[in-house]
């Protein structure tokens, strides 16, 4: 966005976005007929032209909005979208694709307006038929359209929020001089128009000369526009003084504010000057009169007065923080003891938390850093005085500040929990690929340090319920991180008594298992524990924990964030099982996740694109809150690849054994089949590109029993880069895969080609599949025992003899199937009867 343009729209118009109304005649908009446009094209750049078109349409819409003319508004809106569509290439070129601010604004305005009208049920009833019909379609169209601009809209909506206060101040000032108002209102509009034209002039190489610019503009306008130009010029003259006036006003106000603050800072003891800015009951200055004896009681009373203003609408939150700091200084100056000091510090922290008004929004970074400074300080005070008691249960009346043991009402645990939540929010706010994210992530060390401090304090207090909570916080900071020392310890490169994160987890989790009685904490602790084990390749421990906890049965009834944790855990467990060559377990862990095709959503690693308005705004907001911060994400490509490879290893041999048409087996991995069938349907199959292509190609190779081709499709340059390099212990995994592919290919080969052989030498097979002879023997033995392969081994000649006469013929196999079904039916009946009996016994 060109700089001038940016300032033109942003600073000016945004600050007054709400009250902004277009004053001019709507007719003015119609003056630009098509013909004129064509004549203009000669002079103006496309950008200028498109933008003007847009702004005009916007103007129209605003007018319609005022008179609630829905049907015209609808048509104007349609025009607007069309015009925007036309302007898109220009925008892409000139502003690198960023949607212009004014366009976003009109969308936001429209959205608000439509919602407002829609909510107003009485008003809707009174509308004439045409209008209400248009309203409905307008609402739908707008909603659909806005979806594309979601991101811009949210940033736009956030920005005005942030400037809330300035705006409010400005409003105050504005209301003073009401006569100047109508004129002023048009100003931003004009500014914007000018801004739109300005860069165009710049294109002509004439940047500096303002009047020239205007001259050219008036030249291009036809005579019909004269009125318009006239008003323009008039406004131009009017504008400057107005703006100046406004500026001076603002300056004055600022100066006043600043002065006020400076005074606060300068003389700490004198409190009379402060009161003007704060909405605090007015008795308090007496207590801090210059000669007043400042003692604990006084400070406490003062503190409670300040805190009384907390959460009220007119309270200036920033000033409240300042006040509290001031109070802290005084108390420190007069040496009032650690208890009161801590109490004030707690209040400051609470005030900083309060500063961000919305729960859904992240706090501002500067306040965040403040928090990170304040909380450790407060905790240090607390830890330095072990006999200080901070608890929620202590009533205000029982607080003791002047003598030991100190009793303070408050809860450090909630502070930490809040801090942690804020931290996650902040992270989610940042773009995960930016430097900012990394910077923010560095704060995690501080957060964990704070948690540690609180933990020492709470352990000292010895309240199991609270210890459990703080432990869980710690666990949740720990569980997704890979500790290298664990692996080193396992390989004996570290002394056996090194304390690794696995040990820490073990200790924390066991405490939670034993002492927790809320169930939720325990569930989360178990899940984190499993995750951590799985991450460090402790497959058996992880599996046993899963089996013992029986979480699979109850997890549906828990809250969404725990369910997400469960999904993440299962995903990781699947990966761990895969690394341990437990293909079946891996598959069963992942299949539930993969079957839905909503992995992204299930792991809370991003929202699915919206289809037909499946969820409302509120829902979306909630879902956004649930998202995992980026550094905790699990690699989805790896996940899917592991799932597909496991499916391939499991499904391909049985597919070769059974004719698909003959036996409709219960299909376990629907996704994999779909993928295979999809590629079969294609007339022309190109060389594989994506990860899925590779696996499909490998599956086909395996079906032909060509293990080396299959292996080459699974493990190669591209796949390494795409998938395997992201996998822990990639080399082990690759060798494991090789072995498994060889074995499964051997099985597939035998299934597919056994009818061509009368006998086959095991020597030959072991050469073909590059497997050791005992392995070949073992694989074949297994197949014979399980009656998958109708053959037997001739030991003296080391060969497998096929029994072709025993292979069921078509009729026989069908009869066998029938027999099986019948016996199934019989068993069903038997069971049913037994069940009946059991029920009778119960009666």
């Amino acid at each position, binding site marked *: 966005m060109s700089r001038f343009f940016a300032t033109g729209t942003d600073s000016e118009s945004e600050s007054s976005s709400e009250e902004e109304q277009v004053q001019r005649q709507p007719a003015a908009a119609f003056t630009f007929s098509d013909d004129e446009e064509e004549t203009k094209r000669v002079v103006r750049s496309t950008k200028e032209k498109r933008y003007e078109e847009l702004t005009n349409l916007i103007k129209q819409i605003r007018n319609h909005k005022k008179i609630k003319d829905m049907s015209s508004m609808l048509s104007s809106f349609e025009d607007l979208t069309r015009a925007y569509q036309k302007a898109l290439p220009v925008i892409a070129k000139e502003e690198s694709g960023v949607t212009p601010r004014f366009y976003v604004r009109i969308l936001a305005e429209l959205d608000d307006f439509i919602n407002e009208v829609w909510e107003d049920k009485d008003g809707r009833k009174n509308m004439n038929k045409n209008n209400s019909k248009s309203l409905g379609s307008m609402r739908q169209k707008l909603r659909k359209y806005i979806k594309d601009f979601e991101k811009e809209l949210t940033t736009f909506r956030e920005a005005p929020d942030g400037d809330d206060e300035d705006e409010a101040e400005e409003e105050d000032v504005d209301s003073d001089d009401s006569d100047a108002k109508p004129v002023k209102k048009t100003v931003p509009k004009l500014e914007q128009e000018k801004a739109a034209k300005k860069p165009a002039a710049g294109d002509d190489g004439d940047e500096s000369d303002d009047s020239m610019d205007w001259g050219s503009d008036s030249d291009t306008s036809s005579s019909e526009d004269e009125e318009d130009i006239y008003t323009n010029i008039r406004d131009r003259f009017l504008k400057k003084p107005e703006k100046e006036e406004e500026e001076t006003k603002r300056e004055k106000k600022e100066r006043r504010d600043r002065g006020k603050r400076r005074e606060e800072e300068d003389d700490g003891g004198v409190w009379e000057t402060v009161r003007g800015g704060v909405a605090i009951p007015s008795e308090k200055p007496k207590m801090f009169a210059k000669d007043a004896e400042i003692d604990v009681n006084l400070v406490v009373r003062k503190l409670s007065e300040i805190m009384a203003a907390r959460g009220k609408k007119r309270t200036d939150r920033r000033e409240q923080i300042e006040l509290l700091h001031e109070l802290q200084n005084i108390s420190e100056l007069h040496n009032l003891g650690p208890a009161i000091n801590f109490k004030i510090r707690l209040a400051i922290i609470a005030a900083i938390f309060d500063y961000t008004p919305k729960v859904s929004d992240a706090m501002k970074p500067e306040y965040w850093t403040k928090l990170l400074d304040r909380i450790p300080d407060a905790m240090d005070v607390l830890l330095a005085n072990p006999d200080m008691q901070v608890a929620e249960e202590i009533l205000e009346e029982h607080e003791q500040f002047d003598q030991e043991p100190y009793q303070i009402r408050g809860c450090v645990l909630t502070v930490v929990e809040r801090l942690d939540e804020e931290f996650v929010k902040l992270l989610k706010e940042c773009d995960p690929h930016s430097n900012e994210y990394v910077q923010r992530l560095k704060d995690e060390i501080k957060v964990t340090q704070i948690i540690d401090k609180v933990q020492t304090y709470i352990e000292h207090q010895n309240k199991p319920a609270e210890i459990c909570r703080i432990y869980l916080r710690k666990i949740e900071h720990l569980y997704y991180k890979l500790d290298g020392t664990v692996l080193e310890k396992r390989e004996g490169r570290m002394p056996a008594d090194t304390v690794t994160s696995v040990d820490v987890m073990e200790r924390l989790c066991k405490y939670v298992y034993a002492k927790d009685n809320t169930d939720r904490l325990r569930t989360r602790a178990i899940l984190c524990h499993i995750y951590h084990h799985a991450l460090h390749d402790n497959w*058996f421990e992880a599996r*046993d924990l899963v089996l*013992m906890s029986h979480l699979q049965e109850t997890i549906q009834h828990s809250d969404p964030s725990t369910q997400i944790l469960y999904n993440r855990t299962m995903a990781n467990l699947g990966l761990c099982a895969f690394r341990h060559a437990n293909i079946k377990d891996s598959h069963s862990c992942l299949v539930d996740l993969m079957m839905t095709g909503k992995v992204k959503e299930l792991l809370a690693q991003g929202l699915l694109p919206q289809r037909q308005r499946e969820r409302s705004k509120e829902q979306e907001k909630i879902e956004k809150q649930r998202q995992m911060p980026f550094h905790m994400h699990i690699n989805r490509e790896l996940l899917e690849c592991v799932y597909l490879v496991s499916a391939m290893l499991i499904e391909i041999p049985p597919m070769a054994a059974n004719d698909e048409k003959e036996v409709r087996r219960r299909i376990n991995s629907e996704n994999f089949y779909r993928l295979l069938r999809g590629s079969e349907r294609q007339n022309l199959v190109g060389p594989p590109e994506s990860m899925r292509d590779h696996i499909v190609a490998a599956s086909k190779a395996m079906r032909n029993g060509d293990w080396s081709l299959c292996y080459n499709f699974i493990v190669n340059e591209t796949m390494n880069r795409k998938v395997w390099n992201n996998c822990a212990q990639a080399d082990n995994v690759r060798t494991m895969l090789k072995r498994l592919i060889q074995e499964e290919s051997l099985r597939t080969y035998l299934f597919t080609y056994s009818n061509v052989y009368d006998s086959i030498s095991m020597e030959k097979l072991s050469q073909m599949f590059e497997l050791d002879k*005992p392995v070949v*023997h*073992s694989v*074949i*033995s*297994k197949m*014979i*025992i399980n*009656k998958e392969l*109708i053959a*037997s*081994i*001739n*030991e*003296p000649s080391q060969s497998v*003899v096929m*029994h072709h*006469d*025993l*292979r*069921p*013929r078509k009729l*026989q*196999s069908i*009869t*066998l199937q*029938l*027999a*099986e079904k*019948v*016996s199934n*039916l*019989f068993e069903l*009946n*038997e069971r*049913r*009867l037994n069940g*009946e009996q059991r029920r009778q016994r119960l009666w």
Partner: protein
Amino acid sequence: MAKFDLTHKLGQYLDRHLVFPLLEFLSAKQIYDETELLQGKLDILSKTNMLDYAIDIRKQLHPNAEVPEDLKIKRAQVVAELTELQNEVELVYKLMQNEEVMQTMETMRDPKVLLSHLTKEYDFKIDMMDNLVKFAKYRYECGNYSVSTSYLYFYMLIMPPTDKNYLNVLWGKLASEILVQNWDTALDDLNKLREFIDSNAFANPLQVLQQRTWLIHWSLFVFFNHAKGRDHIIEMFLYRPNYLNAIQTMCPHILRYLATAVVINRSRRNALNALKDLVKVIQQESYTYRDPITEFLEHLYVNFDFDGARQKLNECQEVLYNDFFLIACLDEFVENARLMIFETFCRIHQCITIGMLAEKLNMNPEEAECWIVNLIRNARLDAKIDSKMGHVVMGAQPASPYQVLLERVDTLSVRSEALQNLIERKVKAKSQDVSFSHVHFDFNLIMPVLTEPMEQ
């Protein structure tokens, strides 16, 4: 061989008195240092009242040292206390001596009626029971197990299961029965105890788990000494999920005993299924526990690695020889294990050289040939020996589809008939009752089953 010795693991879950037989066995085997074992015994004894025994061992350990005074004093104390307790339960003792009373007690089933009867007739008071239990316990501590069994038997006849001592008494009874080697009653007590643990919901699941673990360990004594024990051990350890869970979580080493039981029970019905289930469990727990016996099964049924199985069988013999519980079934185990190897081998192979077979079975060729000939003669194996080539040629081919079909359908009609009869009987019995219309519904469902096999 100390590597595979489980005594220290088992000991954790056994009563002090139950450990003695194990220690005695170990000292006979001379795997460990004798003095260490004696010292261990002494430590165990220090908490019991078996002072005479303690003095004996002390003498063995330190032949020259005098018996310390405090032991003597303690002995006197114990004797004094014992007589005191005995006086307190005098009445019960008399009752127990009275044949007539005992007979009426045994015939009377209801504890409440029995209690009132006793109170009326013999001046019996319920408070005495506490003392009785105390006395029995004391007797037990002194190593006088048979006395305590009879007292505890008396207790169990009278008291309802809700009594606070009931669980302790059950345990005490079981331990005493085991120690007097009264296996029949021990088995009864074991079942009683199991029912009690399973039915009675302990407040704490952890406690239940602990009780079950103990029971599993104590039951080993019974199972490997009672004639029917081997059936029961499979039934209890493998097919009661609670106990299988307990084994998996608390004491995977019990898998050794389970595996042995399954192997020696090979010829029984359902042995094949048991084997399959067991192998699954073994595989699952292979990371926490493995010994030659479990590995043998794993080699044979998971990897079909006959060489490995053979090696393990060798080791198994030694392990079994040194195991208190398993030494009795050593021969049986080896024989069955060989048969298992051979059977699996035959199922896979068509033609085997005798030399190879002998090697796999840990025999020399002549012995092996003899063994196979015996098998063939006893018609346990359908095979012929090609003596010129030194081959065994399997006669039994895998079943043809036709046979498979027959097998599958064969029993179906009989079983269906049985089912039909059952239902008909039921319907007749309940024909007046309208509410049993659902039985008719079932009946309808079964009809197609009955007809279909006929059509074939």
